[in-house]
């Protein structure tokens, strides 16, 4: 909720960036997967949000290897 009201965007490589909202842009949409308890990308539906490098890196990214671990 910064002044510019940018949204999180999941880029092709999985990195999460802050970007201006664009209409109908699926890489800015996410959904909650009850089965794995993870947040998934609408653009790459098999990718889930995680803290990179099994929680050892400060950046957030999306990964297709969904482990449902704490990170």
């Amino acid at each position, binding site marked *: 909720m910064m*002044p510019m009201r940018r949204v999180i965007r999941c880029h092709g490589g999985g990195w999460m960036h802050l970007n201006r909202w664009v209409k109908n842009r699926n890489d800015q949409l996410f959904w909650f997967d009850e089965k794995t308890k993870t947040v998934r990308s609408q653009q790459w539906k098999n990718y889930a949000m995680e803290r990179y490098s099994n929680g050892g*890196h400060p950046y957030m990214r999306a990964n297709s290897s969904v482990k449902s671990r704490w990170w």
Partner: protein
Amino acid sequence: MFKVDGSSILNGLPGKVTAVSILNNQDVESKHITVNEKPDGRISQQWEVVYADEWKGEPGKGELNEDFGLYIQRPFYIVSALNDHRYLDLISNKYMVIKTRNGRKTQTWWFDQASYTIKTKYNNHSWDIKSAGKSADMQVYSTNSQWFQIFKYQGNQFVNVG
């Protein structure tokens, strides 16, 4: 795994909880999203989950941007509340001053939704705090949408919100 807690998005095990944040707390295009800081409620850690079917999108030309308190691309004057009610104007077509009404384009302003900045009709440059925000003086400058160019109209005041 992540959970939404109020306006925070949290990760981690009990005792080691971290919050989803923005690198260097900067509201800048393509900044990395991070998740290594302790939650402290700062604005760069605050998020709003907006469901796509409820998202109204951005307002269009002539519509009010409620966050900024200004109508989009609708020209306006800015009149001082001081006794002589002078108009916000430019000298040397760049530096902001107050002057009596003169009908010049340098006294006409408009809000640009694309950049979230207030622009002059004279040359469409944006309000700008001089020296990249390090000065107390105001001017118009080419648009970059950095924090020192972002202003909201709240109450009867223009507030820098960068």
